[in-house]
């Protein structure tokens, strides 16, 4: 793919008081794509994001946004980007319109320009009717819409979203996804962090899986899934005490690529289910296991996560201070 590079992160490391939040991270974001940083809490996603929006300076390495350095040219970078923070960064006492007016002044817009853009954005996120109510009366979804309107106010070339749908109900989530797709349609580059697999899968053109401050893999969701090579057969066994012996019996058989013990039984990565299924069932039978349930899946993004980090995203330890 030969596309313009919007963001170039090169050997970025950041440590705080001896703790390495991010270690030697490099990646590129193409202009006009939705790029996701996927990982559990504390993985280092926010550190990368905060570096890109010029609020952190790297310990080593550097990041450029449309060729501008995030530290040296910070002020010019800030004119190109919009940011939607993770927390509900809303002033409960201000109305929706006042939020946008404040930001318009901070981006040095003229009164007329500000009025035009604010009206446009309020319509876009469907907050017209609520624009003059204090934000403390807004629902979670409405606050998020206001957040996004705030991020879009400077008409940015790159929009950064930090966990855009964290804690939202399903309908609000789908709405936010629609907005993000529409922005991409308008040619905007979007960089978002998420710890939702389905969000990364459905929304992102490409994503980087991050764990413990390191990028484990980068690619489109489809590439990543295909890259695992093979579908997955999950066995649920009635008794799991001797599951290890079944695991070793299956390992190395033709058409079976990998075997992993799960709390309920085994996950088996197979080349073709047609060949593998009889072999699996025969082994289980021969060793006296009764199979309670058998499930066959194409690889999902959580399998990709698992393959690259050794655990499921929801099993990750909850860390603070990313």
């Amino acid at each position, binding site marked *: 793919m030969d596309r313009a590079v919007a963001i170039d992160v090169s050997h970025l490391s950041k440590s705080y008081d001896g703790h390495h939040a991010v270690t030697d991270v490099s990646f590129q974001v193409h202009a006009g794509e939705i790029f996701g940083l996927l990982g559990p809490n504390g993985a280092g996603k926010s550190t990368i994001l*905060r570096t890109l*929006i*010029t*609020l*952190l*300076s790297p310990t080593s390495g550097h990041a450029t946004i449309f060729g501008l350095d995030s530290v040296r040219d910070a*002020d*010019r970078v*800030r*004119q190109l*980007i919009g*940011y939607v*923070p*993770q*927390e*509900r*960064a*809303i*002033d409960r*006492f*201000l109305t929706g319109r*006042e939020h946008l*007016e*404040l*930001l318009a*002044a*901070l*981006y*040095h817009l003229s009164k007329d320009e500000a009025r035009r853009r604010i009206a446009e954005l309020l319509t876009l996120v469907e907050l017209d009717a609520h624009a003059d109510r*204090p934000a403390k009366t807004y629902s979670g979804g409405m606050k998020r819409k206001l957040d996004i309107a*705030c991020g879009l106010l*400077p008409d940015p070339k790159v929009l950064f979203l930090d966990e855009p749908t964290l804690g939202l109900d399903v309908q609000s989530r789908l709405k936010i996804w629609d907005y993000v797709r529409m922005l991409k349609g308008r040619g905007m580059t979007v960089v978002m962090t998420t710890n939702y697999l389905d969000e990364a899968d459905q929304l992102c053109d490409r994503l980087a899986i991050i764990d413990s401050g390191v990028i484990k893999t980068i690619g489109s969701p489809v590439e990543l899934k295909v890259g695992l090579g093979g579908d997955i057969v999950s066995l649920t066994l009635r008794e799991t005490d001797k599951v290890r012996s079944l695991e070793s019996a299956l390992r190395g058989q033709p058409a079976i690529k990998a075997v992993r013990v799960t709390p309920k039984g085994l996950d088996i990565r197979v080349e073709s289910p047609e060949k593998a299924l009889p072999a699996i069932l025969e082994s289980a039978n021969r060793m006296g296991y009764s199979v309670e349930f058998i499930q066959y899946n194409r690889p999902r993004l959580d399998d990709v996560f698992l393959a690259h980090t050794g655990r499921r995203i929801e099993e990750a330890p909850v860390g603070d201070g990313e």
Partner: protein
Amino acid sequence: MTQYWQEISALTMRWVRRLSREKFSMLFTLVQPMLFWLIFFGNLFQRAADPQVTQAPNYISFLAAGVVVMTVLNNGLAGGVDLLFDKENGFLERLMSTPIHRTSVILSRFIFVMTITSLQVLVILGVAFLFGVHPATGLLGIAAILLIGMMFGVGLTAISMAMAFSVKSHGDFFSVLGFLSLPMIFLSSALVPLTAMPGWMSLLAKFNPMTWAIDAVRPLILSSWSEALPHVAMVVVVMVVFDALCLYGGAKAFRRAMG
């Protein structure tokens, strides 16, 4: 320069809007020092306080200077609270990701706190006036009082903002605040002149910048320019040093938090 001004005025407007929408809190911040300290405390100790010791016609007139500076103290120390909340809910990050001058947010806060404090000082002097306390040095004296208040307030607000940027949680912030405020008042000449204090307390009070501020404000209210002037000159020197130290510490804390 016009951009800088556009930023600062928009940010200052935000603080004004917030205050105007917290009517209850506004009323309490405004009324509390006058009601509690000036009216209750002043009248309560009217007969307990010895005019020979206070060197004032009555206790309220002695106390007025103390209440003025206490108001500056409390407003200044609380000056960082809103930034603390902005830091905790991410609003500060949102502001700092825009192409504003890095000092705009802080400057807007200084302007706001100093304006509110000055208005409050004027109200306190007005209430004291109703109780018969007529500033001896006139309008110019009142201007001098406001100036001293602002000089003290700048340093205190800087300390408060430095704390807001440094603390891990707002629980810490409020414990430190509570711990600082009352000892600062008791170890100063706000309620009792230094000469009437136990030796160790008057010694500690001499190191309290608040004492210097009060000792300059008091003669401006009670006596005359000729008596006040040396104290005013002295407090200006003390406050320049105090502000320089506080602003230096504040700038360091800000850079660390934003770096």
